[in-house]
């Protein structure tokens, strides 16, 4: 289906099902229960899952396939965000022009940066991209963002936002004063009450989810295309490619630009969900984050980057919010002394300590699952299927011994 083989089609359908049912799947615990803290099925976080999923999928096209490790992809995310907000400022709150422009502008930006950076490979390439992104960040944070200067492109630390004095040329009188798609605001939600559960279906989320599915689909197509194969060949042996009559530069540049456009798209979507673009989006830590997402999930795999993005965002948003009060709630059933002890121990890993947990998990995952979360999943699957097979194979086992 869709020009994919059955395995990929199945993967795509699973991802689609997960994305569309996310409001249910991410809210497994009834409201008000102690575990409700772990629910992730609210619009903002779900949006982040899919948007950063897009970012990571795009990054993976470059890194996973060609092995070129860009340390400056956040620059494209930022450029995309700024472009979208500028569209809101100039044209109005319909999200379409913003999304389109963010992809175009980040693509152009990627052409320039990629053209220069791809002259080098390995760590030298990484540092070149890093340098470009850091320059963009520093300039966006200060020189290009001074509200009192005539040239205020980014609005500095505060972040670029829409002011009532902005032109908004296409904003019609009745249209909502919030990002919307032909009148449906990104913020609008439908809620469904089932017993103690409350499920929220948010317009913005579904827009992002659909775009994510399209992005994912495109990435599967790229992975399975001759182009994708060429990119893997670049990673494997550039020398051989040259002597096989292939010019690697346009291949890597195309991959770079495509992944830059994915990043720009993600940035644009971030702005449509929340119309403010901050400079930190371009900082090296943000570039590092997408690297971590991709590796954590499994670089070079189709679904890995999305998993990695979800994993990191989940920690950032859920674990950081568990505070002492919540912990006392959980351990309230214990006798006082033990309650305090338990709270004291766990406290180090949640709330302000969520970074610690994240750091430890990075170390554990990469040490024990070299292929990232995807490998973890595969091992689990293999464990189950092995058990089944072992039962089947038990009888014939004697024959399969190496015989000379």
């Amino acid at each position, binding site marked *: 289906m869709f020009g994919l083989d059955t395995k990929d089609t199945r993967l795509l359908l699973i991802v689609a099902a997960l994305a569309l049912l996310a409001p249910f799947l991410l809210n497994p615990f009834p409201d008000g229960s102690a575990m409700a803290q772990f*629910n992730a099925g*609210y*619009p*903002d*976080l779900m949006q*982040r899952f899919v948007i950063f999923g897009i970012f990571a999928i795009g990054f993976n096209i470059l890194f996973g396939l060609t092995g070129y490790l860009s340390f400056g992809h956040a620059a494209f995310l930022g450029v995309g965000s700024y472009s979208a907000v500028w569209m809101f400022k100039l044209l109005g709150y319909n999200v379409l022009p913003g999304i389109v422009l963010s992809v175009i502008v980040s693509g152009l930006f990627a052409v320039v940066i990629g053209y220069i950076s791809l002259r080098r490979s390995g760590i030298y390439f990484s540092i070149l991209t890093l340098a470009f992104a850091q320059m963009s960040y*520093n300039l966006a*944070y*200060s*020189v290009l*963002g*001074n*509200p*009192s200067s005539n040239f205020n492109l980014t609005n*500095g*630390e*505060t*972040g670029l*936002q829409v*002011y*009532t*004095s902005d032109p908004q040329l296409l904003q019609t009188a009745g249209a909502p004063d*919030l990002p919307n798609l032909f009148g449906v605001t990104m*913020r609008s939600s439908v809620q469904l009450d089932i017993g103690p559960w409350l499920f*929220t279906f948010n317009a913005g989320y579904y827009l992002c989810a659909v775009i994510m599915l399209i992005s994912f689909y495109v990435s599967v197509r790229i992975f399975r295309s001759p182009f994708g194969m060429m990119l893997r060949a670049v990673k494997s042996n550039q020398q051989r490619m040259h002597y096989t009559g292939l010019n690697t530069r346009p291949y890597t540049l195309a991959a770079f630009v495509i992944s830059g456009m994915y990043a720009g798209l993600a940035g644009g979507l*971030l702005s449509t969900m*929340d119309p*403010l673009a*901050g400079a*930190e*989006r371009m900082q090296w830590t943000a570039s590092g984050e997408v690297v971590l997402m991709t590796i954590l999930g499994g670089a070079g795999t189709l679904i890995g980057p999305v998993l990695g993005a979800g994993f990191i965002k989940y920690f*950032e*948003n859920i674990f*950081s*919010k568990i*505070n002492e*009060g919540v912990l006392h709630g959980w351990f309230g059933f214990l006798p006082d002394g033990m309650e305090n002890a338990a709270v004291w121990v766990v406290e180090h890993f949640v*709330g*302000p300590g*969520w*970074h610690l947990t994240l750091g430890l998990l990075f170390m554990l995952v990469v040490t024990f699952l070299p292929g990232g979360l995807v490998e973890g999943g595969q091992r689990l699957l293999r464990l189950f299927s092995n058990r089944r097979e072992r039962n089947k194979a038990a009888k014939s086992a004697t024959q399969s011994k190496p015989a000379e």
Partner: protein
Amino acid sequence: FTNEPTGSTVTLGFNVPQTGPYADEGADELRAYELAVEHLNGGGDGGMMNTFSSKSLKGNGILGKKVEYVTGDTQTKSDAARASAKSMIEKDGAVMITGGSSSGVAVAVQGLCQEAGVIFMAGLTHSNDTTGKDRKANGFRHFFNAYMSGAALAPVLQNLYGSERRAYHLTADYNWGWTQQESIQAATEALGWQTVNNVLTPLAQTDFSSYIAPVINSGADVLVLNHYGGNMVNSLTNAVQFGLREKQVNGTDFEIVVPLYSELMAKGAGQNIKGIVGSQNWDWKLQDEGTKAFVQSFGQKYGFPPSQAAQTCYAQTLLYADAVERAGSFNPCAVGAALEGFEFDGLGNGPTLYRAEDHQCFKDVLVVRGAENPQDEFHLVEIVEVTPVGQVTYPHDHPMFAGGDLGKCNPGV
């Protein structure tokens, strides 16, 4: 309206930096919030609820609903802060968001609360923009701002150092730095000081030596450090290393001024801060009843005195609760109306006005100085003068605050 509390409880969202360079400020803010919640729910000794001029709070929660809270990490990044605030609103049903310790974050979160239809009670934010260019109907600021720092400091500086001074500014190159510098330059120039130079320094800078060195031969005799947090600790340390404090220019002693002060910064700067003048929103050594009550209950609970960050956040929480009580509703528009133009006393800052036009609090501003011989680690800062509120008040359409528009209060869905 958004997140109308229907059950027996009401949820507030405390959005503070738990990681990053302001994590200590964030931790202190959180302590204050927890204390405030305890007091609102009738626990503890009641703290400033006893000294607060408005007597609507009864220690039975807010409008009879028990106060619960959720916390989040802003990481001092506008993005993360907004994400965290959004999740509090969308997931936890918070009806008010408060906290933060940077202007960028405050402006970003304030904008979000405006769109989402909840009240935002800003924590630490000192930029003029928060209640100037970026003011919002749903947002309120108790903390003072850069203009007020300038206005409070200038006369003291004139007293201490005369009106013939030539100032050299180092300014953190971001929004807060710019407004701070603009304010202090205007205030000092009005007294006859000259501004020799203003040099912008990158926010990420850690070693300021190459910015300090040119000061030596610039002919300036005052160095103004428009820096905050780690920036300020480092630039001040560097300035002292380069011997600026022992320096004499044209027969007068060279002086350093740090317009925005905090206890935590003073601690970070150590020896170097001694005798250096700056301004603060509040200090635990003030002798009014509100302060004493607050220091007592905070000190009992945590074992050390509260910072100005703690006081601001505590006051914001009480102010919000009180406004709800007086309005009789959690509706942001009703709460906003109750806060607008509200005059009160007993929260540690003397008589205070929440101005209707821009939602900025007007109250006395402290001019402080690094203590020469601190008796212990809590006495690093001493109060030089309490600048009366009249001297720091400005019209709401003052040019430094122009271009803003509160808009209409938004109660959300």
